[in-house]
């Protein structure tokens, strides 16, 4: 399952798009095997479009927490060698299974990211990247509890959704305390506010600190 291509920029019909190589799945624009990664539909896509290095490299082994309908997962799978896609809710899982049909390097797991022991017998250790986009309270705790899957040189790409932590606390305060709590176990490399398509979200790129 080695990949010859990563992601890149490409002009499609006069507009520059971030693209990955693979079969289209959600009506995205395509050009000679490449398909556009819509930043309005994917938080990871929108962060990559802002030239942030999130550690998504060719042939990476990835754990994706909060896989949802598999829109972003499909692009990650175009680049990575294997994607363990954890999703808790049965309805989006149906869509994710559809996406996995055309991408056999996606391992769909109907599991709760808050309980990594329920999938530690499946997901391997020493992964290159954890992508976390989970709409629940305790997002930082999930990142800390899932650190054991990460290789010492791996990276964490974490989306903090302020509204899921608490609807009434100002997002700025939530971001600040999230970064503080995460710093106990991870070295923060970069933080990035998301564009207007994804309100009240912050992306954090981090590396695991040695225990």
């Amino acid at each position: 399952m080695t990949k010859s291509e990563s992601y890149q920029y490409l002009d499609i019909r006069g507009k520059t798009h971030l693209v990955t190589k693979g079969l289209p799945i959600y009506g995205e624009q395509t050009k000679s095997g490449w398909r556009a990664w819509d930043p309005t539909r994917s938080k990871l896509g929108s962060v990559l479009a802002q030239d942030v290095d999130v550690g998504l490299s060719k042939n990476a082994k990835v754990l994706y927490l909060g896989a949802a309908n598999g829109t972003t997962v499909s692009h990650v799978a175009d680049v990575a060698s294997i994607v363990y896609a954890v999703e808790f809710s049965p309805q989006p899982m149906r869509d994710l299974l559809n996406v996995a049909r055309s991408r056999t390097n996606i391992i769909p797991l109907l599991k709760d990211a808050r309980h990594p022991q329920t999938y530690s017998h499946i997901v391997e250790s020493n992964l290159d990247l954890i992508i976390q986009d989970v709409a629940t309270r305790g997002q930082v705790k999930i990142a800390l509890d899932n650190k054991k899957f990460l290789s010492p040189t791996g990276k964490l790409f974490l989306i903090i959704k302020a509204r899921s932590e608490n609807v009434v606390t100002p997002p700025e305060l939530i971001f600040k305390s999230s970064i503080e709590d995460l710093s106990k176990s991870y070295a923060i490399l970069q933080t990035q506010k998301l564009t207007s398509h994804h309100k009240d979200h912050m992306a954090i790129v981090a590396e695991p600190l040695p225990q």
Partner: protein
Amino acid sequence: MNEKDLEHAWFYQTNPEDTLSGAIAIEEGSCISPLSWPSMALEHGYATTPDEYYSRLYNSACEAAQKSALNLTQTPDRQISHAIRTMDDYSRIENELTARLSEWMGDYTGISQDLQTSIESIATNSNHSHFDAHILSLHNQLISLSDKREKLAHFIESEMPNIAPNLTQMAGPLLAARLISIAGSLEKLAKKPSGTLQVLGAENALFAHLRGRATSPKHGVIYTHEYISKTHPSLRGNIARAFSGKLSIAARIDYYSGTLNPELHSELLTKIDQIRSRGGSK
């Protein structure tokens, strides 16, 4: 390779040729910490190449995810939620079409308000215009929609005592179904605090309150029950609190045991009498 570690692996004791046995191990297994499962699988003889390992994992994982997703969605309380939502859709569409029909009829026959009379006048009129058929067809559609809605209501009424006996006895089948549908499932409803159950269906008002822009809502959909709607407004908050308290106990009994406990309802009735006997203030 440590045998003890291997025992936790999803592929330990699964037949490589049998996708289903892998799926069951994926569903039911657990482990404290992950290990290098792929290389252990090769050593253990579960697969001969990494590609073969991942391909077997893929097949079993897809099977497991599909099966467990179906198990979660195929439950009676989920079907009842769809039934009550469909019922609500029917009545919304009925209302819209009724408004359309009476507007059209008014212009066409000059008779206002009384739909039945004007429909009959069209149906019996021997001087048919080419509009008639369409107006009558719209009318028939309305009858058919209301018929479907009533059938669904009967279905919900007959199913709910099996799905949630206590909740149904207390709230009535339609409100009980509506509470389950808003919460997402009987399990989710049973796990909500009664204060949340009290304002289910009043989310906009609740969040306006949490943001400091409004007073807290007294009740959500439970308002449709006569315990609340037929109580003096100044006492509705009290009744809503007592009602939702008992409803959440009912939901918990329904979810965890499923047997009817009639005392619960009589306790509520006593409580409601007490509150109402205070009389409403001006």
